[in-house]
């Protein structure tokens, strides 16, 4: 029954949105990390979504195809006293755009809520179907 596939679809969407929220959280937390384990400044991460077929009835869920590094240029801050400054006195700071990350967070949480509602509605319909004829 197609209604069962909706659980998988909604589940995959909630999973994907929560991964997106995870990357937003890491980006916001590391917005000022000038260095990291490999010696370079933190690069903002972004998720790439792709549709994937679920079940045999043609339903499409979402999955995270990749977590890529944001290709936008790093932020250079002039601070010659900083031990991490390069020869011209600039320190490479992360390329995290806080405004974009907040927008991402709001969009991800809205999508998550819609998917939870969708799952609840399908569950109600399935339970009502079980009590057919009584």
């Amino acid at each position, binding site marked *: 029954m197609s209604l069962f596939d909706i659980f998988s679809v909604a589940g995959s969407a909630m999973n994907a949105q929560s991964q997106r929220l995870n990357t937003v959280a890491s980006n916001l937390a590391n917005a000022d990390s000038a260095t990291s384990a490999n010696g370079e400044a933190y690069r903002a991460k972004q998720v*790439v*979504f792709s*549709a994937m077929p679920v079940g045999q009835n043609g339903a499409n869920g*979402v999955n995270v195809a990749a977590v890529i590094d944001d290709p936008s240029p790093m932020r250079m801050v002039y601070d010659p006293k900083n031990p991490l400054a390069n020869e011209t006195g600039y320190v490479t700071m992360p390329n995290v755009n806080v405004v974009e990350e907040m927008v991402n967070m709001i969009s991800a949480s809205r999508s998550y809520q819609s998917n939870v509602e969708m799952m609840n509605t399908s569950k109600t319909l399935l339970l009502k179907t079980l009590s057919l*004829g009584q």
Partner: protein
Amino acid sequence: MLNRLDDMLNFHTQALRVRDQRQQVLASNIANADTPDYKARDLDFKSALQGALKAAPVAGGVMLATTTPGHLGGKPGLAADAGLLYRTPAQGSVDGNTVDMDAERAAFADNAIHYEFNLNRLSSQIKGLLSVIQG
């Protein structure tokens, strides 16, 4: 005789099946609201229901296998993409995604209510039959 029973319950059964299929298409749209290049789809309910009521074998539908002459034939199920159309987007989008969350959620709620209505009618038809049988 069994055919008469089947025919009586047929309309709402087929309507329920098509509503079920549509619910799933709308769910896929809502889940993929953020996927780049995803095109929103929808079922044309009227033509899908008419197709299902005519019981014409749809390409890709599942037929009940009848191996001996005494087997009762079943009605074919709905094919996975019977009558699926693309939704026209109200506004353009940079990433090629045509899902409009408001339209999809409204359609989802509407479809859910129609599903419950069909369940209700089917239930009262069955109860009517039961009350006739039990006298």
